[in-house]
């Protein structure tokens, strides 16, 4: 593999990891607060769809991004109500939401786009950051990316700092580990968890928008193809820590990038095997490398006063 090819591989790994990263960090926050949010997949799909529609209808990808953020919040709110107020089974309700969104977006896509499904949708602009982008040979291939990617990195850093150093972060961790204590200290567990699920929705909407208007500039039915579940797997793989989650997402991104890279290198591997690879990797990671007692103590359990 030459340097140029390697740079392309690196660049596409980062690009393919970005939706996982954004959604994964959202999921991490949600799980830290005690809500196992299985509807990431549905939220991403809704985000991707709304971004595509908004961008296509207005011609402005920024408005598309805005629409994605707005459109996902009701989905996140539904998940929050189901898992906190109604105390439904979080896994079942999450998967239910995923199916609902898949059906709704597919129906709406066929209604809105119909025969014009090949329509080019205006996408977000790419930027090349000044210093690292100018590195000879690899700068352009690796670092010339959609600006949302860099915004996402900034968001992740901010999230990490908030979780680590602020009282909000402490409250979020406590809501997942020891909700009774949070309740006794006068904070509302329900409110914290609502907030975290809505935040997961916000991050997922960015992830979805990145898929549709950042990366491939079109929408296809069910285009997330399990990326939301990979995001959840990356949280488990990352042992519910930001650094680990980021590493896991990059790993899955690289595994996905192999799909395009190996054929370019002339290595014949069955297509299905390559598509399967990130999931296989996630399975091995989740099965082999994570200990038992890592999850937030009350993950998946609705809080009852």
């Amino acid at each position, binding site marked *: 593999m030459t340097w140029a090819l390697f740079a392309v591989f690196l660049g596409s790994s980062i690009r393919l990891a970005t939706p996982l990263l954004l959604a994964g960090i959202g999921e991490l926050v949600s799980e830290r607060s005690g809500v*196992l949010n*299985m509807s990431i997949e549905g939220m991403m799909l809704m985000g991707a769809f709304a971004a595509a529609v908004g961008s296509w209808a207005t011609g402005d990808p920024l408005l598309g991004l805005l629409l994605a953020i707005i459109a996902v919040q009701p989905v996140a709110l539904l998940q929050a109500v189901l898992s906190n107020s109604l105390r439904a089974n979080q*896994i*079942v309700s999450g*998967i239910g939401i995923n199916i609902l969104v898949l059906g*709704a977006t597919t*129906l709406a896509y066929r*209604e809105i786009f119909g025969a014009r499904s090949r329509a080019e949708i205006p996408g977000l602009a790419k930027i090349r950051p000044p210093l690292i982008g100018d590195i000879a040979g690899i700068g352009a291939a690796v670092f010339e990316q959609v600006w949302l990617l860099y915004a996402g990195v900034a968001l992740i850093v901010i999230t990490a700092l908030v979780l680590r150093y602020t009282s909000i972060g402490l409250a979020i961790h406590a809501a997942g580990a020891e909700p009774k204590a949070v309740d006794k200290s006068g904070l509302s567990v329900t409110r914290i968890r609502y907030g975290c699920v809505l935040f997961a929705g916000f991050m997922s909407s960015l992830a979805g928008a990145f898929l549709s208007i950042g990366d491939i500039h079109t929408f296809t039915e069910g285009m997330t193809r*399990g990326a939301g*579940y990979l995001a*959840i*797997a990356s949280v*488990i793989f990352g042992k519910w820590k930001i650094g680990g989650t980021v590493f896991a997402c990059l790993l899955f991104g690289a595994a996905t990038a192999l799909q395009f890279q190996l054929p370019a290198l002339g290595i014949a591997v*069955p*297509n*299905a*095997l390559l*598509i*399967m690879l990130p*999931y*296989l990797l*996630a*399975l091995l990671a*989740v*099965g*082999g490398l*994570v*200990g*038992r007692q890592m*999850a937030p103590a009350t993950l998946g359990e609705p809080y009852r006063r």
Partner: protein
Amino acid sequence: MTAVECAPKPAGARWRLRPTLLVPLAAVVFAALVGLALIASVGVKVPDAIAAFIDGTVGSPYAIAASINRSIAFSLVGFGFVLANRANLTNVGGEGQIAVGGIVATAVALYGHVAALPLGLAFILPMLAAVVAGAAWGTLAAVMKVKAGTNEVISTLLLSFIGVWLLYWCVQSPALLRKPMTTSATLPESLEIPDATKLPLLTGDYSFPVHIGLPVTIAIAIVVAVLLSRTVFGRRPGRACRRVHAARRAIHPQGRLFVGLWLRRPGRRAPGARLGDRRRRGIAAIRLHAIGRDQHGDGRRRTDRAGGRHPGPDRHHARRRDPVHRAMGTAMRRGPQ
């Protein structure tokens, strides 16, 4: 007897029937209404849609049979889910388990030389092979759960994706199950399986093609229902039960056996107990048995200081010291809830 799961039926079991029936019913009605609203929103006449829906599901013998056949698959996966769920496991990998079962059933039917076998083995063998394959696929998640503590939700989900892509791989590769490519337009699918290996139709009539899966599913449903309602395995751990679990750790082999049995049939008259209501019978039986239980685990019954079998005057004192009684405390006093 290792009683894994247990929970006495609540006293007011009758009224609890209502929500268990009403909630799914309400869900179906609500889902139908949402669906109709969606249909109306894209400009289709609702009566037309309803007519088409009825026509497609129960409008003709063929449609009815197709509906039944489809619901067989749902039911089978559902039974599996419920069983696992009783052990507090959530299996969301039905999709992958179906895919793997389908791959293996097709492979055996096409290339297993089973088509000429007598006695229905032609279709039974592929079916059994599929059962083994699907179960093995599920076992992967189970092994990961037991050995590495992997959350079964995420492992079954990931296995689902892998299973489905395995299926695509099998039908895309001519080296696997894909039918010989005669033209470039040959679809990515396997050959049709021989007639003898297809599930036989109940009526033998292609205008009403309900297949043998229906009686098989009903039989499995009965087995699962019995498992869930009549055996230790099927009982869900309730609050009282958890305390009993704690208690069981403190007691010895025979006591454990008895607690297992007791939890299994809370309504049954316990041996040696002749007290008033059901509940007290259970408690009394536990006490009697605990007192006479095998304390040393060596088959000898416990004796009092005098060496006699009958607990003497210090019986109450002995009972208070008894770890079984201490641990069971309130849970037992309350009896089955």
